[in-house]
């Protein structure tokens, strides 16, 4: 009897998660999949086929955007790691107690503001009549106003800024668990800063690095606001294409196909990343 009861409790507790997964993730995807494999042959006439996917591969603009989104996201992930690692190392290893909490909180504080507002903040800074442009003119470095927005660098800045926290948090957690005496032992045995970083710190932090990278990569790949607002109409972000298929063109079939392609891409890249770093998903996410 007790086992039946505990089973009931288990399923009751599990039900919110199952409901969430079923209604918000699985059902829409199944629906989207059926939409994506239906071709429009006439008014309200559909045939099943992979025509929508063929459209993607036959139109260079689409797969160029697709590839561009992928490598920009990878670049943003690496840049975030490059900037986030020293920050995380400083927080985890070189500070203690109150300072540590304060610094950690300072990483978190920007996220109290919505992403839209933060992105507008960047626009205020970077636009032609913005703070940076005016400042450069004021100190006499440039003659006329400069437009910093609507280029790849602006997109990259926005992406790195948006995802920094998601890199720093897992890194701080793993670096925190690195025993200081290991680093000291490394020095004691004749290692220098570089070899210790390469042979001791990075191998130890690898699960954190990988889980941070996965999260940041997925966030960047699926980001819509930042590339559109900071990159302008030339941003060529794949999510932008999906949006326009659904909303502007009313072409849900092609939009759904794009959605699935993006899902496939992110899964593939994460899989390759895990293989390259010799980590497993359970190991990196289970921490």
């Amino acid at each position: 009897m007790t086992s039946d009861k505990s089973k009931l409790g288990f399923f009751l507790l599990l039900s919110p998660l199952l409901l969430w997964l079923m209604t918000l993730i699985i059902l829409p995807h199944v629906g989207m999949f059926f939409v994506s494999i239906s071709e429009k042959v006439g008014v309200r006439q559909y045939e099943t086929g992979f025509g929508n996917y063929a459209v993607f591969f036959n139109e260079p603009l689409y797969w160029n955007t697709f590839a561009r989104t992928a490598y920009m996201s990878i670049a943003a992930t690496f840049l975030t790691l490059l900037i986030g690692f020293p920050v995380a190392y400083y927080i985890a290893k070189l500070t203690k107690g109150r300072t540590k909490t304060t610094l950690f909180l300072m990483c978190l504080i920007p996220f109290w503001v919505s992403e839209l507002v933060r992105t507008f903040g960047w626009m205020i800074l970077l636009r032609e009549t913005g703070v940076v442009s005016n400042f450069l003119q004021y100190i006499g470095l440039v003659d006329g106003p400069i437009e910093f927005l609507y280029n790849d660098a602006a997109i990259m800045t926005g992406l790195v800024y948006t995802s920094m926290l998601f890199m720093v948090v897992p890194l701080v957690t793993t670096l925190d668990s690195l025993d200081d005496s290991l680093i000291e032992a490394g020095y004691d045995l004749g290692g220098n800063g570089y070899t210790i970083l390469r042979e001791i710190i990075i191998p130890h932090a690898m699960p954190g690095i990988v889980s941070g990278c996965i999260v940041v990569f997925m966030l960047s790949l699926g980001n819509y606001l930042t590339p559109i607002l900071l990159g302008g109409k030339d941003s060529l972000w794949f999510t932008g294409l999906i949006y326009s298929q659904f909303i502007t063109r009313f072409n849900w079939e092609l939009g759904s196909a794009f959605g699935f392609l993006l899902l496939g891409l992110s899964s593939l890249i994460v899989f390759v990343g895990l293989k390259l770093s010799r980590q497993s998903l359970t190991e990196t996410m289970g921490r």
Partner: protein
Amino acid sequence: MSEIADLECRELSKSFLDFQAVKDVSFSVPKGTFFSILGPSGCGKTTLLRMIAGFQEPSSGDLLIKNKSVLDVPPNKRPVSMVFQHLALFPMMNIAANVGFGLRQRGVDKREIEKRVETVLERVGLPGVGNRSINQLSGGQKQRVAIARCMVLEPDVLLLDEPLGALDLKLREHMKIELKKLQAEFNTTFVYITHDQSEALVMSDQIAVMNHGVFEQIGTARELYYQPKTAFVAGFVGEANKYDAKVTAKNGDALKLVTGDGVELSGLDAVGGLNEGDRAQVFVRPEAIKISRKQADIKGMDNGHSGEIESILFNGANSQLLLRDNSNGAQINITMPQTGEFRDLTKGDNVYFGWEAEQTRCYLADKVS
């Protein structure tokens, strides 16, 4: 011993913001010595060791290895290696990579590294474990890998920071002997810090007893045990019965004292400098006290008392008796003789006990107490 000392400290001090951890410590360790620094926790011994390793900079004083000052040498260039308290083996590498770490940093050829790693692993008694991971080793094996990792670099001095602390008692006893053997095998100078006196006494050629940042005494285990120079050493090294007493008469080194409870004692002025009327701390080793059922047996002894057995702390060869002195009610601790004669002693028995004045070492009590 006329050759150059492997390690020498000259008036080494270390102050932190509000207190001085190490005060003017000077000592030198000849080559091939097993040198221990023994002290209670918080006495500054870890700070001292970390200064030798280079992780902390001394506030003043000089530190010499093979007669060369190493104050300006960073820890990764110093010819010393350290075995950390929790060993600090690198869990991300296998054993061979751990042991070879230092050699790789020096840019030694890959083949040569393999060869030397295997040799040193053989010397510590772990041949052929190179490909195993750290977690597959037992506590004692990890210990030996940690030592091998240091010894493969052939350091002038090996520092050990209480490496036996984490082991269980049986293994600790075993590793004491093992460490001593390894030290003899490599013939390297070991500087070993510990708070466990038996580790220090068993293994060391020389022991320094440290308290509140200063060296109280440096000597061999025997010297520290039989001729402690300060009250702290007398109380810290080995067990002792302790009395607070006042000097009533003095004749050369021989003293007459009386305790607060009015017991008269004959003692020896251990380091000189005690005068009539001084307050003294008196130490008597439990094994220096003779017990007997007959008063006649202790008649000739300088100090003679009788007492009732309060409890018997049976511990095989190290069994002890706790007695309550009949004359003053003071508790006294006596090692039970192993001759079998007293095997049938029970609680409540009355026995006579006594000891010689030579075994009663007296020191000037701290002014404060």
